[in-house]
């Protein structure tokens, strides 16, 4: 039976990681589109309208992939984790139902008008549709992260005669459970940063070829403002999230830090090394004394527990958590560096004229996705061996399925996802490889929208000079 559990975990990890890439991008991109359209309506400057249309085409492809990979998720709980669904369904089910009711319908209902309706409704109404899609992506993050956070820090529940988690009274403590505000802020900012890096990378790519392209200049500038302002906020939010995790899930933080043994006089900060649960130590460790306590307790000499304070069976798989956490932090620091570099370039008036900055931005283009996945692995693998932290073990959560069935479906998911989403990623890159032109077309495919609908001021204004 263990094999079926491992396979089910592999399948869930695969489908959720793939899925997470798309919302991480579409949450940020929907807001960016809202800003672009708003700026266009306010200033009437064509460069905004052109950028709106440029990124709308990309949004359409990414959003479609997010929808279908998300649909898979809503059924994975039942197909692979039926015991978890029976037991935790009365608590997390309603949270997810609210996500569908308040977010998915909102996004989907207005997406058609956003993508295809610009010639059918007025500008104000179209802007409203864009805002509703952006709002929908945010509300969706709200509910799904509330559900996920409850699994990390379960409160406000009682256990009924059937062994199910049921709400003990008010729903408010469940929705706003202790880790939720931190996770929401950290994840939504991550989505904004991810999008900013993609937009900045695309802008930089085109600046390297033609530093006068007004669309490329505008998108690069906007993205670098975002990176410079938001990366430091994200590091602070991450720090606060870490402190919260130390309070509620200490074993997870100790695994992230590689602290196997208690440190009564202040824990070191282990920079690198190879953690080994079998030996209960980090081999080849490179550490700075006392720094770990400074970060986690904001005090050099504060004592910290170690994993050995917990039963061996309750440790998360430390090496994965240790390394995924370091990848996330390293990329976060690199994002901060890029943001600071762009400020320097701005101060020297070389923002559009510094090829090495542009090359760095191109290289950092996909960094947000890697950081998001690494962060997700840190928190999800760090929750092991539980699905509902401290209460329901993963090994007791799965469906009564035979290993071959799970293995076959895992293989099918891998093949289909690589084929379908691989092709989609190629189409996205192809769209991004085209420079933003003055008079950018609508999402072009449907013949009815091919001609005669480009707003006149957009064309006239979008020729050079528009910064």
């Amino acid at each position, binding site marked *: 039976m263990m094999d079926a559990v491992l396979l089910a975990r592999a399948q869930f990890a695969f489908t959720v990681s793939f899925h997470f890439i798309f919302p991480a991008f579409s949450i940020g991109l929907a807001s960016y589109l809202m800003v672009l359209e708003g700026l266009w309506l306010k200033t009437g400057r064509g460069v905004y309208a052109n950028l709106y249309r440029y990124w709308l085409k990309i949004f359409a492809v990414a959003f479609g992939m997010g929808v279908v990979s998300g*649909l*898979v998720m809503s059924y994975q709980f039942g197909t692979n984790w039926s015991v978890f*669904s029976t037991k935790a369904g009365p608590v997390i089910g309603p949270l997810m139902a609210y996500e569908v009711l308040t977010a998915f319908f909102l996004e989907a209902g207005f997406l058609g008008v956003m993508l295809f309706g610009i010639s059918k409704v007025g500008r104000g109404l179209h802007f409203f549709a864009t805002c509703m899609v952006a709002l929908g992506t945010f509300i969706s993050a709200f509910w799904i992260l509330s559900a996920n956070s409850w699994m990390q820090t379960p409160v406000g529940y009682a256990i009924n005669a059937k062994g199910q988690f049921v709400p003990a009274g008010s729903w408010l403590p469940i929705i706003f459970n202790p880790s939720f505000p931190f996770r929401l802020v950290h994840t939504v900012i991550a989505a904004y940063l991810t999008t900013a890096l993609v937009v900045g990378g695309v802008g930089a790519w085109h600046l390297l070829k033609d530093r006068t392209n007004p669309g490329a200049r505008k998108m690069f500038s906007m993205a670098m403002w975002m990176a410079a302002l938001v990366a430091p906020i994200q590091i602070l939010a991450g720090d606060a999230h870490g402190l919260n995790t130390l309070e509620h899930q200490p074993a997870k933080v100790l695994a992230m830090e590689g602290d196997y043994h208690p440190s009564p006089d202040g824990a070191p900060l282990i920079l690198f090394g190879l953690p080994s649960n079998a030996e209960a130590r980090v081999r080849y460790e490179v550490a700075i004394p006392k720094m770990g306590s400074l970060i986690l307790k904001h005090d050099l000499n504060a004592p910290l527990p170690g994993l050995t304070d917990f039963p061996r069976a309750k440790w998360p798989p430390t090496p994965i958590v240790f390394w995924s956490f370091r990848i996330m932090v390293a990329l976060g620091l690199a994002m901060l560096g890029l943001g600071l570099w762009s400020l320097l370039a701005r101060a020297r008036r070389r923002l559009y004229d510094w090829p090495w900055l542009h090359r760095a931005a191109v290289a950092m283009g996909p960094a947000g996705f890697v950081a998001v996945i690494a962060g997700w692995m840190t928190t999800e693998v760090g929750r092991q061996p539980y699905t509902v932290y401290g209460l329901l073990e993963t090994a007791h959560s799965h469906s009564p399925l035979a290993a071959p069935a799970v293995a076959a479906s895992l293989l099918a998911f891998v093949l289909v996802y690589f084929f379908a989403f691989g092709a989609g990623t190629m189409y996205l890159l192809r769209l991004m490889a085209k420079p933003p032109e003055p008079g950018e077309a609508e999402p072009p495919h449907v013949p009815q929208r091919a001609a005669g609908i480009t707003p006149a001021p957009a064309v006239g204004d979008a020729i050079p000079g528009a910064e």
Partner: protein
Amino acid sequence: MGSIDLTIIWAGIIGFAVFAYVVMDGFDLGIGILFPSFAVGDERNQAMNSIAPVWDGNETWLVMGGGGLLAAFPLAYAIILPATYPLMIAMLLGLVFRGVAFEFRWRDARHRPIWDIAFTLGSVVAALAQGMTLGAILQGIRVEGGAYAGGWLDWLSPFSLLTGVSVVVGYGLLGATWLVWKTDGAAQAHARRLALWLGAATLVMLAAVSAATPFLAYDYWRHWFAMPGILLTAQVPLLVAIVAFAFFWSLRRGAERLPFLLALGLFLLGFVGLGISIYPYVVPRAVTIWDAAAPPQSQLFMLVGAVVIVPVILAYTGWAYWVFRGKVGTQGYH
């Protein structure tokens, strides 16, 4: 408000979500199923354009059905999904292909034939899997100790194949009649011919499933044929006959909107028939809706949201359809 009332209300809401899904995504999938019969070029583009702005919202009802089932009837969700595991996976993967094909076929003219095939295959597989899931639920699921206790191919039977093919044919009918409404010229004439044949095929399938169902279990037999209930249940086939007659009459008369609405009427009657067979079970003869129900505080919490939000959803969904009203044409909706 007692928990019994809430449970019945939630059974109604889930039923509504599933039917809303069938109504809305049924014609989308139907167009996918019929896609190979449309001429490459304008006819295919028209068919695609007629659903491109709305398919995403339509599919959301499926998420609502799944999510709502988890929330309101967690035990049913946890039994039915493992019992139909390969069908669920096949449906999801089919919907992945169908969903990405909408955008991809316009992005890549060279490989458009491949994405058109993916669109059709995805639609057929999803429809077939949905129909077979229905059959698997109707024929019964082995439950022991509140969990699925069968093997992973129990769902496969002549009956589930019959229901699977029935749903494919029925969705095809919805797709064809939708195109009669939304297109004109040669495309419309083609759709009208298809609708005629598919209407006849749908009635045959409906009759076959209806005839087979009472023999699956004595319960079903009793629900349909015991006195005095038969006075009510007999109205269902009677109404089917009336709607079917009106359907063919409207199609011959050249009506554009009516065939689609009447085809939906056939689906509604089939749906009511299913309800008569199954109620009050959610997993027939094993788990009633009350056995599977989430505690009242969970159901009440969601009910508040559903009562407020579902009408709003219906309003803006209706608005989106209204924005894209009229004939698709090849050059625009005008």
